[in-house]
């Protein structure tokens, strides 16, 4: 069952991206079947949200770590990419400074802060998009799991983490653009970001990376490692008396998941054209958890589908009734929790034998 849904999801994601690319690049703008470029980028954005959802499901669904701060890792990956894109602007900024981004000239910076060095190099920037979230998750997770912080307390400190980063990134003296963030990007890898072909390339790259992550996490949770992880999720103390160190298992998936989210953020920024501290907002992390709950916690493919469906809904809803979206999202979460504890995938598999890997309704003591 879950293998089928994984395969279907892979085909849907890849098929949709290729189809949109063909319909965008291969048809005239006034043709009946032409896919507008905004649709390409919008879909690409949904796929990066799906990457974030997948990373949340890995830690929440399989390790029982309800992270309410995962959007922070996504945003950190996004900032790393944003810094590269800023350096790519070069002398084409408003102030025409070849080295300093516009906001630095405006704030009277004389030289590039040390942590901006290297970001003119695409490889270095992409490396940072995984290293920075990974290292922060490593330090945070090491402290939390070693002291056996779990459950609600862990959720609260993940929320505190993203809130602290939100406040830090708002500050102008962080040297990362303050509350305006980073924007006005021109090129990526020397290719114009506004070009249709670049947009399609980013969409397909997002699709491929999402699919690779889905396959990787699928391998992980069905491996012996994954079985230990599920055992840790439900009966942590028992695993300890068998000689396992749950903190090592949790730390491994937490760091991996932060890296996955960071990659998602790095793909998100060139497609939306901006990254600002708002991405660290605690509500973003909570939304990601809702996508997973809607799709089906502990199903991986469900997280992907949940993220896409909720965000398609959000796009239509915010166009029609923008002020009601948060209420609609809250109502959706309550409905899913009460009526559909297995999410959409749980609904699809209802009546079949319960899958062995889906989380128990209540955690064992």
């Amino acid at each position, binding site marked *: 069952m879950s293998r089928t849904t994984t395969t279907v999801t892979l085909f849907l994601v890849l098929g949709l991206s290729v189809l949109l690319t063909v319909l965008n690049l291969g048809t005239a703008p006034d043709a009946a079947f032409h896919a507008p470029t905004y649709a390409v980028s919008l879909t690409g954005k949904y796929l990066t949200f799906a990457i974030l959802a997948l990373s949340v499901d890995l830690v929440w669904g399989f390790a029982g770590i309800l992270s309410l701060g995962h959007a922070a890792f996504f945003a950190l990956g996004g900032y790393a990419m944003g810094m590269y894109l800023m350096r790519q602007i070069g002398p084409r900024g408003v102030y025409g400074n070849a080295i300093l981004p516009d906001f630095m000239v405006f704030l009277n910076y004389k030289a590039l802060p040390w942590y901006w060095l290297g970001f003119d190099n695409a490889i270095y920037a992409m490396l940072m998009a995984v290293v920075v979230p990974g290292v922060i998750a490593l330090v945070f997770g090491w402290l939390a799991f070693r002291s056996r912080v779990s459950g609600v307390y862990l959720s609260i400190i993940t929320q505190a983490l993203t809130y602290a980063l939100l406040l830090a990134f708002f500050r102008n003296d962080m040297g990362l653009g303050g509350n305006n963030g980073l924007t006005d990007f021109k090129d990526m890898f020397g290719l114009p970001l506004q070009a249709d072909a670049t947009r399609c390339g980013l969409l397909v790259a997002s699709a491929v990376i999402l699919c690779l992550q889905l396959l990787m996490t699928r391998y992980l949770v069905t491996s*012996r490692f994954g079985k230990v992880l*599920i055992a840790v999720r*439900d009966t942590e103390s028992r695993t*300890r008396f*068998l000689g396992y160190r749950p903190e090592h298992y949790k730390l491994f998936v937490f760091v991996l998941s932060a890296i996955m989210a960071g990659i998602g953020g790095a793909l998100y920024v060139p497609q939306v054209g901006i990254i600002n501290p708002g991405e660290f907002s605690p509500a973003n992390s909570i939304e990601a958890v809702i996508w997973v709950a809607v799709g089906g916690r502990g199903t991986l493919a469900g997280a992907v589908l949940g993220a896409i469906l909720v965000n398609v809904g959000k796009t239509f809803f915010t166009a029609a009734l923008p002020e009601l979206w948060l209420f609609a999202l809250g109502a959706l979460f309550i409905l899913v929790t009460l009526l559909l504890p297995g999410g959409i995938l749980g609904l699809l598999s209802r009546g079949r034998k319960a899958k062995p890997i889906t989380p128990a309704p209540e955690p064992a003591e």
Partner: protein
Amino acid sequence: MTFTKPQDTILYLDGVSVSFDGFRALNDLSLYMEKGEMRAVIGPNGAGKTTMMDVITGKTRPDTGRVVFGKDIDLTQLDEPAIAALGIGRKFQKPTVFEPHTVWDNLLLSLAGDRRPRFTLWARQTGEEQDRIAEILTTIRLMDQKDRRAGDLSHGQKQWLEIGMLLAQEPELLLVDEPVAGMTDAETEQTAELLREINRTKSVVVVEHDMEFVRALGVKVTVLHEGSMLSEGSIDYVSADPRVVEVYLGR
């Protein structure tokens, strides 16, 4: 205090005390067990039997006293995984198995071996592992249940699966907390038989307050009461001991 320790001791508790908010769950408890021995520990509810197991397995750190495993390993300095790795396995009072996993996978995860993520990430089931699991399934009489979700087993079957998980761990010392609670007479009889079989190669501590079951085991008995040792000897000896009679009948 000078106390000459006998040669082949596997477990030695020396003046162990544990308090919870001023309440002494274990009170200067000392006992030693020989290698290869099976020991029954009995005592009324709240006597400190489970707490004693918590101390041995590293879940609870004693306020005072030492717990020595084998020649000279002080268990009070180690945590649960380290103690498990030394060869001490534990079955809980309330059966604790990995409910979402199959019976087979429960045993697979319990098999002695490398516990580190870098191993389990790439581990493939070997023929040797499969043979070992099949062997244990036969011993615990769950071969026909091997593909069932552990959470769907009956209470008695879960108790056996947990004993099987202990066996898979290949510990030198097994701590078994109330293995026959909630079992039928026939199951209780089979469990006694199973424990005797296990004791052929391993040292075992069985906690139980079912006197009939302890009698069926036919091993040396330690009686705990209010965190201390009240009496020790054969089942006939301790059940004739007036202090024991008072504790059991005077309640």
